């Protein structure tokens, strides 16, 4: 929690002043019954109009000063809470950005989004409440008791007894019902789960004619929920009546003690009125306090979840400068894998085992294999999205870990399987590849990516808006734009991770041709399930269950690699022969 509190640093003043002003307000409130007692005891008793008038003016003054204090407190508290959550969100966002792929996988996208939004909001309102009320309520309770002592010590003893009793009831009911409310939530979740199940599985439910049994199942779960709701409802409904009885017992005691004291001249009737008033204030504040504790414990749970994200350490560090020298015999190498193995965090089995190969500058490397054979895992090691757990990966003669982050990612461009665009324009998306690219650069990249035609056809061309996630573009268009985006950065190594899957065969072929025609020694990795897309690669890596089972050209592999032969056959050969 210490680190979480650190974000409150800029708002130290506000977080001290808010509760302080709240307590000031409470103090002024506590004087009101005493002033009223004076009015009764002195003003009315002595028929002193002037005295009454002055005291009532004092009441108004107290009310006004109280209001001012309270407004000030609310302002400081809101400022501190909002400022805190803003700083926290910033820190969280920045932290998430620093996490590597491995941690992102473990945490999961949806979790991170909830932490950033609703959890932080909960923390914000929790903090706001805390600053405003957490000191005020206990202060009023104790303050009322102290005030009672100033009126009459014997009567005040009733407060000393009542306050603990009330606390026991208020907090007791809370302690008993809290876990029951959790059960209600679990049962509600069950009802929610069943509802969702019935909707997503509606075809299966109807195919098996299970409508009635689903209804029965749901009604059982629903009845359990209702039963629990009633049970908790009845229990927590005890709080008000019980405290009410207690308070009235205390008031009766006050009246009794009061009448005895008055009889002997120990106090006046105005004092009894004041004491009854204090007693009523105590109840109100205790109930507030109980609710506050619930709210704050919720906020603390959220804070804990936020903290867990902040505590996740980035698993990868990058050097600030390029390290090491390139060995003379490696100057022609673009990518070199040396006995590389990869086991994902938390996975039981390795995803890649003992992979060794060398890609020369300017070569086109094909990667093929079934689903889950490790194709993406292999190429993800090249831009160092993950660190190999065994062996070494080298880029242009140096270990990947010796490159600063920006230098590495600038030289290696990846077009991922899932075409991800961002809200903005086509131009703003392409500029991700290189902020300083000219329009000519952008168009050249679009031409190569086979995207120029459809961009040109858009009314606004490069300035055509792109919705969040690129929803307004087709799958093929998105893929081509992501390829263009990668090309804008003029990388030395381009990785197409199954990123032409939404393109038809002709476009796919044209893309490959255009890539081959690019000037300079661009090394291209093409991951694909289509053998046809890879036939002209200088080397094809054949993966099966994380093992490199074949490496070579198309024709060499056909005779030497049974897995490749199988893939190829399933896609062409048999069909051709039997057609």
């Amino acid at each position, binding site marked *: 929690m210490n680190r979480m509190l650190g974000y409150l640093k800029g708002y130290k003043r506000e977080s001290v002043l808010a509760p302080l002003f709240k307590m000031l307000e409470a103090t002024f409130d506590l004087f009101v019954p005493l002033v009223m007692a004076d009015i009764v005891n002195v003003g009315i008793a002595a028929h002193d109009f002037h005295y009454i008038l002055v005291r009532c003016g004092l009441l108004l003054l107290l009310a006004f000063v109280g209001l001012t204090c309270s407004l000030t407190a609310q302002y400081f508290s809101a400022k501190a809470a909002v400022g805190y959550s803003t700083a926290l969100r910033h820190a969280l966002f920045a932290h998430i950005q620093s996490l590597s792929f491995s941690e992102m996988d473990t945490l999961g996208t949806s979790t991170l989004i909830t932490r950033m939004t609703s959890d932080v909001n909960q923390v914000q309102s929790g903090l706001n409440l805390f600053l405003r009320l957490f000191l005020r309520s206990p202060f009023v309770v104790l303050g009322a008791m102290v005030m009672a002592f100033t009126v009459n010590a014997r009567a005040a003893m009733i407060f000393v007894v009542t306050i603990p009793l009330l606390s026991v009831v208020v907090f007791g009911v809370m302690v008993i019902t809290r876990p029951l409310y959790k059960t209600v939530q679990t049962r509600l979740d069950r009802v929610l789960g069943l509802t969702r199940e019935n909707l997503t599985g509606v*075809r299966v439910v109807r195919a098996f004619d299970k409508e009635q049994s689903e209804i029965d199942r749901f009604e059982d779960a629903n009845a359990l929920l209702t039963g629990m709701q009633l049970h908790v409802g*009845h229990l927590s409904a005890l709080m008000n009546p019980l405290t009410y009885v207690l308070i009235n017992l205390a008031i009766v005691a006050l*009246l009794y003690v009061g009448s005895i004291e008055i009889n002997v001249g120990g106090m006046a009737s105005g004092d009894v009125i004041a004491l009854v008033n204090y007693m009523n204030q105590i109840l109100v504040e205790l109930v507030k306090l109980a609710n506050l504790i619930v709210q704050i414990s919720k906020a603390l749970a959220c804070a804990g979840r936020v903290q867990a994200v902040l505590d996740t350490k980035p698993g990868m560090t990058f050097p600030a400068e390029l390290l090491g020298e390139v060995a003379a015999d490696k100057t022609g190498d673009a990518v070199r894998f040396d006995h590389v193995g990869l086991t994902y965090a938390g996975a039981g089995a390795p995803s890649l085992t003992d992979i060794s190969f060398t890609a020369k500058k300017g070569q086109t490397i094909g990667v093929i294999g079934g689903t889950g054979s490790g194709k993406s895992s292999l190429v993800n090691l090249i831009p160092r999205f993950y660190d190999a757990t065994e062996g070494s990966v080298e880029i242009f003669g140096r270990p990947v870990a010796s490159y600063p982050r920006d230098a590495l990612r600038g030289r290696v461009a990846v077009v991922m399987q899932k075409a991800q665009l961002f809200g903005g324009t086509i131009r703003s998306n392409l500029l991700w590849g290189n902020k300083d690219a000219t329009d000519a650069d952008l168009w050249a990249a679009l031409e190569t990516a086979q995207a120029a035609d459809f961009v040109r056809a858009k009314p606004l061309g490069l300035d055509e808006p792109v919705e969040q996630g690129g929803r307004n573009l087709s799958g093929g268009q998105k893929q081509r734009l992501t390829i263009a985006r990668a090309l804008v950065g003029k990388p030395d190594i381009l990785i197409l991770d199954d990123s032409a899957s939404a393109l038809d065969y002709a476009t796919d072929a044209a893309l490959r041709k255009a890539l081959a025609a690019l000037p300079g020694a661009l090394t291209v990795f093409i991951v694909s399930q289509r053998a046809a897309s890879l036939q002209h690669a200088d080397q094809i890596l054949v993966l099966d269950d994380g093992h490199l089972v074949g490496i070579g050209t198309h024709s060499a592999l056909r005779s030497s690699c049974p897995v490749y032969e199988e893939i190829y056959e399933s896609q062409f050969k048999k069909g051709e022969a039997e057609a």
Partner: protein
Amino acid sequence: MSAKAKNKLTPQQRKATLNRVLHKIRPYSAFVVCSLLVAAVSVAAQLYIPILCGDAIDKMLGKGNVDLAGVLRIAVSILVVAAAAALAQWLLSVCNNRITFSVSRNLRNEALRKIQTLPLSYLDSHPSGDIVSRMVADVDTFADGLLMGFTQLFSGILTIFGTLLFMLRENVPITLVVVCITPLSLVVAGFLAKRSYGYFQSQSTVRGKQTALVNEMIEGQKVVQAFGHEAESLAAFDEVNGQLQEVSLKAIFFSSLTNPATRFVNNIVYAGVGLVGALYAVRGGITIGQLSVFLSYANQYTKPFNEISGVVTELQNALACAARVFELLDAEDQVPEAENAAALQPDGHVQLQDVSFRYLPDRPLIEGLSLDVQPGQRIAIVGPTGCGKTTLINLLMRFYDVNSGSIKVSGTDIRDVTRASLRGSYGMVLQDTWLRAGTVRENIAYGKPDATMDEVIAAAKAAHAHSFIRRLPEGYDTVIAEDGGNISQGQKQLLCIARVMLCLPPMLILDEATSSIDTRTEVRIQKAFARMMQGRTSFIVAHRLSTIREADVILVMKDGHIVEQGNHDQLLAQGGFYAKLYNSQFEGVQT
């Protein structure tokens, strides 16, 4: 707050919804009557206690002038009245809980029943998240609103009038002071609410913007990192974050003014009563005890007003939620079954005669499709992704009804047989592998809950699922989580196959799509499919060439239309779309 904006109902809608809500409450009218009665008792008792206190105070006039016996008598009365009030309070809660939770339970049950009879067209076109939120969140909000309404609205009104009555009985001018100043708190609260409503709205707009940005950036986090775009996206985030800070501060500050402001008004009332009351008391117009009654009423008089204004918003919200639930309940049901619908006796003979179908009136999909499938034949449906291959499945299973033409099984129009018997004649394995939260055994026995363990195991073995099930931590009793997270996609598919295996019907609908399934599991699925298809009429959404080539009829679909039909050789010879699709794989070789 934006939720509230969309919650606005027209007065007519509100009235209609209210009527229906009242109708739903009617079965519990005994509780309603009881609730109103005890509320009246509780309010009266609570208002009476300050008066008793006042009487007691009047019995202690000063030193040596105290009627101790009188005070004690009153003390006993206070205790009795307090006990009565407490009991009434508790009964009030019990009644209200009973009404609220029963009504919301009934609503949920009704909604789930509704889901079972809604046509697939409704369920396909409404996001399931939306329906879930109507059934769970909306019903919940409705219940909360109703509970608050019952608990506070009636008691609030009673308290206001009761207090007024008691005060008028004691002293008219002081009552006037209370009555005149108190509404000020409503005015102030209303003003603040209006002001902060605007800020809350802009807060929720900016929040929405921020959530969208966070969504986009975190989902695209890998791309962000791949392009080294971290600094830019942080800057974009900070900009929205700054905007949010600004509007949040205003929204929170203004909304938090309500309590201090009403408390201030309350304090003014208190001072006013103190002044006028004291002046009267000096003249002997009222006793000290009576003054104390006024003071304690003045202290609490704003409370019911504030509560009621809160309840009104809450009730409006509840009504809007109820309206959304009713909207679901009012959706049109699927075409009811014919009264004389018979049970289908399937023999595997399926005829489609001049079938036309469209999801949207202006977008024709299937036009004039005719097909005669003999028992035991295999029909492969092929085409690019998203071309509407599942449409045909929807029609065969009668998830949707044809617009014209007819589908006959064993010579009977499927609209003339019961849905249960039609659907029971097909074994269906879809790409979307739906399993329920429950054990493996429950899932396999889904279609035949009384199956013995031996039957379940036999089905699992036939589906090549037995070996992996055995290796699960609890074997057949392993619980599959709601999202099926603890088993792989391929294993789920094997379980779906086993589920069909257990009650293997004469006709099959299979979807071959096996993306994200490892090769070894895929081989198993293939084997299981082959075994199921033996001697059964099968419709297969086909992805493998071998399946397609072996099919008796291939239906080639493109953009939702069936563009060609015939067997492999015929279609190749035709040189149409199928031939192009098939040959396109060789273009790469030729260039």
